[in-house]
């Protein structure tokens, strides 16, 4: 349809005439004839708006989502409520249709939102500074390790097996380029058992870890100290409503996934990479950073700062290659954290923990269902099931539940179950009843 090109034929003719050209084909004179696409793209012509809506609606209708499918899956992406205020504010077109704030004089809206975001993310981490977002938790982890390696000058990394396996896989992928040596550190009954000695650049632990267990961050800090490494903590920001901050345990870098704050599960994207570090590492901070300053008349103003770290200035020596990040998701996160406030964040964490305990108790009452590991958990837990976890997930779908995430062999199988503040007692009771049925 070319529906979004405003030019009328008469206007195109007029503009071409101004250029001394006689057809739109002439516009591409510098494209060698041999490279021109004869016959145009092999693609159907454009559809009208309602036709596109119908087609997108058809595709959407094929996926099973709430309320047909009640979600007990987590593993990094969680089914939290997104209130109407957060949704409607985030999607103000001024935020949605702006570019990266290169011209601060007309970008104070995005800049101040990011400044507020950074402040809240730093508080969640218990550290002094946070950046303006990264792609997802996994990319934040990659950048955290890169920072630690650069700061320590050592490229070996102790990587807890309690870190989200998908994130570890991303880290591994990118380590092919950076040359980091990743040393997996195994879990013992759900928590990481750190090597007694060795010299490494980074010690990476997740809190609570992938199996939902509360790692001993004090232990991780001591392991890092022994190894001369920076401590990189992958932290669940929702749990932070109840847990001591990683910074209070001595983390140097804290990364995490911000999706739980204001963004729907979205089939896993867009997500939001949270990144915070100590002030002493700020020159190695990846990505954008907003700082407060003043304008010519002394009014408070915000601007992206310490830009000399960034790729457009530093080029091959940049601290990271990130350019476009996840600003709008960071805006949603800042709005959602403000909507929650001090009391709401605590209440949110509490409700998740309560639902988790209630669900865990219900499942463990089923014959043949047992805890996968013994360590205490908070908002997610793993169970061993009498039939393979993947089968449980499959059968539970017919009952209207996404039962959880089936764990890989690395963990000896098992099912990872997450319970958010959205899950009612009635839903959990039905879930447990269905569970009992399908594992029989």
């Amino acid at each position: 349809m070319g529906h979004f090109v405003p030019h009328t034929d008469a206007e195109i003719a007029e503009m071409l005439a101004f250029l001394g050209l006689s057809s739109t084909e002439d516009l591409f004179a510098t494209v060698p004839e041999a490279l021109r696409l004869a016959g145009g793209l092999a693609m159907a012509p454009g559809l009208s708006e309602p036709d596109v809506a119908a087609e997108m609606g058809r595709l959407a209708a094929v996926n099973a989502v709430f309320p047909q499918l009640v979600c007990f899956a987590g593993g990094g992406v969680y089914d939290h409520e997104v209130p109407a205020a957060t949704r409607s504010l985030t999607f103000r077109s001024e935020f949605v249709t702006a570019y990266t704030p290169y011209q601060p004089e007309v970008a104070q809206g995005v800049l101040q939102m990011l400044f507020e975001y950074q402040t809240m993310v730093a508080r969640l981490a218990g550290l002094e500074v946070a950046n303006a977002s990264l792609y997802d938790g996994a990319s934040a982890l990659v950048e955290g390790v890169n920072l630690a390696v650069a700061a320590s000058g050592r490229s070996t990394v102790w990587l807890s097996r309690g870190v989200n396996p998908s994130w570890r896989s991303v880290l591994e992928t990118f380590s092919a380029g950076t040359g980091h040596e990743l040393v997996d550190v195994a879990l013992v009954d759900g928590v990481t058992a750190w090597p007694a000695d060795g010299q490494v650049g980074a010690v990476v632990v997740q809190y609570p870890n992938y199996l939902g267990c509360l790692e001993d961050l004090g232990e991780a800090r001591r392991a890092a100290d022994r190894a001369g490494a920076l401590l990189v903590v992958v932290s669940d920001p929702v749990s932070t409503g109840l847990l001591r901050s990683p910074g209070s345990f001595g983390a140097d870098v804290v990364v995490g996934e911000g999706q739980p704050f204001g963004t729907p599960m979205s089939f896993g994207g867009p997500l939001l990479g949270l990144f915070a570090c100590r002030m002493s590492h700020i020159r190695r901070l990846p990505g954008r950073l907003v700082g407060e300053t003043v304008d010519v008349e002394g009014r408070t103003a915000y601007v992206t700062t310490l830009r000399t770290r960034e790729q457009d200035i530093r080029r091959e020596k940049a601290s990271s290659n990130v350019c476009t990040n996840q600003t709008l998701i960071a805006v949603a996160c800042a709005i959602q954290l403000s909507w929650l406030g001090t009391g709401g964040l605590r209440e949110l964490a509490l409700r998740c923990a309560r639902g988790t305990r209630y669900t865990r108790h219900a499942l463990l009452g089923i014959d043949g269902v047992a805890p996968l590991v013994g360590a205490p958990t908070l908002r997610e837990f793993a169970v061993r099931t009498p039939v393979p976890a993947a089968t449980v997930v499959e059968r539970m779908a017919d009952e209207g539940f996404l039962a959880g995430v089936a764990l890989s062999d690395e963990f000896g199988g098992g099912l990872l179950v997450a319970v958010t503040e959205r899950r009612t007692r009635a839903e959990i009771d039905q879930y447990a009843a269905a569970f009992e049925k399908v594992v029989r």
Partner: protein
Amino acid sequence: MTGGAPGGRALSAPIMGRAEEPTVFELSSPGRSAWSFRTTGVPEWTAEELVPADHLRPEPLALPEVSERDLVGHVTRLSARQYSVDLGAYPLGSCTMKYNPKLCDDAAGLAGLAGAHPSAPAALTQGWMELLADLAARLCAITGMHAATLQPPAGAAGELTGLLLMRAWHRDQGRQRTKVIIPDSAHGTNPASVTLGGYTTVTVPSDARGCVDVAALRERLDDDVAGIMLTNPNTLGLFEEDIAEIAAAVHEVGGLLYYDGANLNAILGVTRPGDMGFDIVHMNLHKTFAVPHGGGGPGAGPVAVSERLAPYLPGPLPIVGDDGAWEWFTPARSIGRVHSWHGNALALARAYSYILANGGDGLRKVAEAAVLNANWLRQRLRGSYDMPYDRPGMHEFVASAASLKRTAGLKAVDVAKRLLEEGFHAPTVYFPLIVEEALMIEPTETESPQTMEALAQALERIAADPEGASAAPRSTPVGRVDEARAARHLIPTWDARPEPRTSE
């Protein structure tokens, strides 16, 4: 009053003048709240019952305590301090700030898309998988490639993915090469990605016509060269006419060609990277395919490759199984995941709806109008600004304020700030680096000829009357911002503010 700044006051909305908006921390008043959760009936265990003592947070984490009303006021007022495409033209070179149709917002908002957990078994996400597979197929058709991954969440992530694909391929050829060539006009993400990909950057200069100096390139080609990264049209908006020759030369030494798709908008339906000889292509869906930029993201940077590189793509990818249903599949020699799930899926859905709406015919029209607008504007401004590469180009062009700086003290940054006053966003300035006082202008296809005329007149006015431009902009929510001070006295969070705080 117990605490907090007034929340229901529009002082900082530009409609009411140019006053500041307090931070949300200043609006906070202890005990106020906006949160509200579902009634669940779940037993109300206490924190102490749920959390081991050595893990339990000693005191609640301090966040802003505001009413929904004050939060809405605050964020709405901040939005009123923000320029955007929906407010006016945004000729920011290289960024392709076109208008993004509202129908794409609807697509991304569908509960059946936004509500899906990514770990759900394939049987429950067939719609998503079909969407992703068809999008990948269409992107391959557009770029002339064989297969694609949709995982990279932005262009730079796509670049690094592409370089890791290159690396894996060379490894399997039995020899690890060390260098990647990029032109001196390249975007900063290119060299940064090269480093992260474990390669060394070798820069090739541009020739006087603004294209890769082929002779210089040949000098740099040897069997240690893993490949070359190019945009075409390049960052000067010029089509690399020698691309076939370049491709042959790079391929001859066993190197691969990487296409930075930031400028793909210019050639939609006209020519294809695959036909030019490229082996790896990333696309910035947030530039070419109407994923709105969100103030800096999320975008999407899919990577498409030729057949020989397909086995290396990140997985999982959706393919049709024996029973006709979609299933996940990871290529044999996959480099591994580059995103924790399937990339910025909702951004991909937006782009997909945009491609459906345009179709093959519409995409070609996009390129035509984008190139027409840019050339018209370049031609129109030749009398007012230097045109270092003054010949027909593609969807953008780079002008220079060098002469104006010399004669009238008008720098590129001053032109930018003056243009803000004129009601337009500024062009990209000081990029590409090879042009002095560069003004990189990309009008995009969605601006009408009337808007082009107004933009031309504004830029002409600025060049004709450079007086006092260093004081610009004067009509914006804040005046020129002191960027140096921000770096010198770093205040990256509200907690780092030097002033004493009364409340939080």
